[in-house]
């Protein structure tokens, strides 16, 4: 099968900080890829580089077989992008927004598909965008993104800021989109249970590094929590493939690892812990732990990431009110 998205050692530095580190990402035609990671893990930066909105420090990316730097406009028109927070002009009505976006897509426009989504979610054409709820605006944004019948759909954390009900409804829309055609979808999220429902394959970015890249069910079947006990302060964990999280709690070092195998065992034994154990893992708990970052992490970036996420959330709240 052909790769619709393919990156080669894609890297982005902001000052001295490496936000995306040597990313080799491949998404096959017809696949639905869920990119997971904490806030600040590099999901948005990756997507911005794919969309040509951020210049890679190193490496390159191809969409639909074309380098993103020199993407011909006819190829670009086959790619839809849904930005975080679903930015649309608040002063337009839903109908005006449709006419506005449609003008950019003269050749390819599926009005029927668009109207289906609007009808299903009872979105009135005459209503001002700014009067819509967050969930409604997300549906309008998705409907507008798929109306040009794109071959590739890229969504940056589309359910961010939506409540549980609105999130589920958005997933219903997305499933509808997946069912209609075998188009390729890449979407980022920080909610595992959402990703599990819609993605064929998941990738997990940890501090800009793609630590996990496997079929969705494989991930759930092979994730393990490994607990190492030390007599003193645990040493720094060197890192390894499949490591989703590493956290120190007193004399314990807790690791969240996908595809635990002999290589991991070797690294663990080289740290000579007093004892170590592979634990039964409640995935949801592990993920809440991981996504919230409630435990002090070994990674230096964590504190910044948490601070940044708090900042983004409050900004977004203001923006919705304004």
């Amino acid at each position: 099968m052909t790769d619709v998205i393919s990156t080669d050692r894609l890297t982005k530095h902001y000052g001295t900080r490496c936000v995306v580190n040597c990313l080799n990402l491949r998404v096959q035609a017809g696949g639905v890829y869920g990119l997971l990671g904490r806030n600040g893990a590099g999901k948005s930066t990756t997507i911005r580089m794919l969309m040509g909105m951020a210049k890679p420090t190193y490496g390159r990316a191809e969409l639909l077989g074309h380098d993103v730097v020199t993407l011909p406009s006819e190829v670009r028109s086959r790619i839809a992008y849904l930005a975080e927070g679903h930015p649309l002009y608040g002063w337009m009505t839903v109908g005006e927004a449709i006419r506005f976006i449609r003008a950019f897509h003269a050749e390819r426009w599926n009005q029927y598909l668009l109207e289906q989504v609007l009808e299903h979610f009872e979105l009135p054409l005459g209503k001002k965008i700014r009067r819509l709820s967050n969930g409604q605006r997300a549906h309008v944004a998705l409907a507008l993104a798929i109306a040009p019948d794109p071959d590739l759909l890229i969504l940056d954390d589309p359910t961010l800021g939506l409540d549980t009900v609105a999130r589920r409804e958005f997933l219903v829309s997305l499933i509808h989109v997946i069912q209609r055609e075998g188009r390729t979808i890449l979407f980022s999220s920080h909610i595992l249970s959402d990703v599990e429902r819609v993605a064929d394959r998941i990738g997990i970015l940890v501090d800009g590094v793609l630590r996990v890249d496997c079929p969705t069910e494989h991930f759930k079947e092979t994730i393990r929590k490994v607990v190492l006990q030390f007599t003193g302060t645990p040493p720094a964990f060197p890192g390894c493939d499949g490591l989703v999280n590493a956290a120190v709690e007193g004399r314990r070092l807790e690791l969240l690892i996908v595809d635990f195998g002999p290589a991991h065992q070797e690294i663990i034994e080289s740290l000579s812990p007093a004892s170590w154990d592979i634990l039964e893992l409640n995935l949801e708990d592990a993920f809440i732990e991981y996504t919230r970052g409630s435990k002090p992490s070994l990674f230096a970036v964590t504190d910044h990431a948490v601070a940044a996420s708090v900042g983004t959330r409050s900004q977004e709240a203001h923006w919705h009110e304004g």
Partner: protein
Amino acid sequence: MEFRLEPSSRLPIYRQIVQQVREGVARGHLAFGEQLPSVRELSRILVVNPNTIARAYVELEREGILNNQPGRGVFVAEPRAQLAKDVRRRRLIELIDKFLTEAVHLGFSEADVLRLLSARSEQFQWEPARLEAR
């Protein structure tokens, strides 16, 4: 039959569906010949990628529990014993031993366990259920 997905489960979604169909058949909630929702229908109902549903159905078909008739739909297959009797017996004994080990460690008496076992077994459909072809 109502499907239920547990996001906190350790089982992937396709496994949860496989297990629920197997259990549905074992408990008699799904009878031989009964039609299941199509891949697309179940995908919409559960809000799950259609590929995941298809994967569960393929697995159930391989196990001989479902029967996919292209153009007509997905049906509960006629039950058939695929393994030789002594193999099935050995597998069951393994499971019973595991279960009894747990029961002993949980501190139950033999009488308690046997009573509970027969009470629970009433909830299952021991003779394979069949839709009468009238």
